[in-house]
């Protein structure tokens, strides 16, 4: 198990859990978001090969209404 922080919330994921798995778990369409892992932007084609480990900080963002 790995304890990570997702959008400011502490969550636990299985070992060998990738960003791709994470997006799937939360039903997030990868085309509509950008992902940052420990302050580094992760390229969309690296989602499957990037695994999460304890203490990782993940930010998933999208577009909302704004001026």
């Amino acid at each position, binding site marked *: 198990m790995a304890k990570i922080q*997702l*959008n*400011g*919330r502490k969550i636990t994921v299985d070992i060998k859990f990738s960003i791709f798995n994470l997006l799937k778990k*939360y*039903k*997030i369409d990868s*085309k*509509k*978001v*950008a*992902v*940052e892992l420990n*302050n580094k*932007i992760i*390229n*969309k084609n690296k989602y499957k090969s990037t695994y999460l480990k304890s203490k990782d900080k993940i*930010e*998933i*963002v*999208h*577009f*909302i*209404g*704004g*001026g």
Partner: protein
Amino acid sequence: MKKDLFTVAGKKLNSRLIVGTGKYKNFKETAEAVKSSGADMVTVAVRRVNILDKKKPLLMDYLNPRKIIYLPNTAGCFNSNEALRTLRLAREMGGWKIVKLEVLGDKKTLYPNMIETLSATKVLVKEGFKVLVYCSDDPLLAKELEHEGASAIMPLASPIGSGLGIQNKVNLSIIINQSKVPVIVDAGIGTASDATVAMEMGCQGVLVNSAIAKAKNPILMAESFKHAVKAGRKSFLAKRMEKIYYGIASSPTEGLI
């Protein structure tokens, strides 16, 4: 008259009105107002996905980014690094290169921090972004932004969301006259006639959010802005009559009975 297209950051737009997508009751109202405004570019903000509510509607489901140009902004950023982080994420989301930079300096007035704005502009231009920059109405700083490679200068008419209209016409005129890149008035527009005035003064475009979203009838106000911007632009192109400080009759005096 040949088609008067608005070219900004290499994009050709039909409308000189750019609208914000914040402060609406819901996404349905946002989409209707955008449609009614005739705008082909809208500003959007970058925020965390709500991971607790998987069914929350998404802006993209209401405004198709393939049909309308998304202009990601950095609203809420108070320093250069936050703004850079936001826009790099926006670019990753779908290749957005045209962005609106907005670095705030004061929570109460939402006045821009021009020192941070300038330094962020430099970095973004270097990274290949086309940057439309929200700025104060200081002509020297506006010129500086242009030197740093800003694709458009976006001086405030008055504080963001204030609806006070154009408060410093002299400065705005100087900026319009000196700029070689488009000048788009951003922030402070309160009602449709403010947009007409900005366009008559020679602005290339107007960016409006609150004045539409906070009207009693946003859809109707959006339409009003569409016409107001067109009217102002045509008035500018037509070149107004000279001001004369005494009366000159419109009817001929010859043949008077």
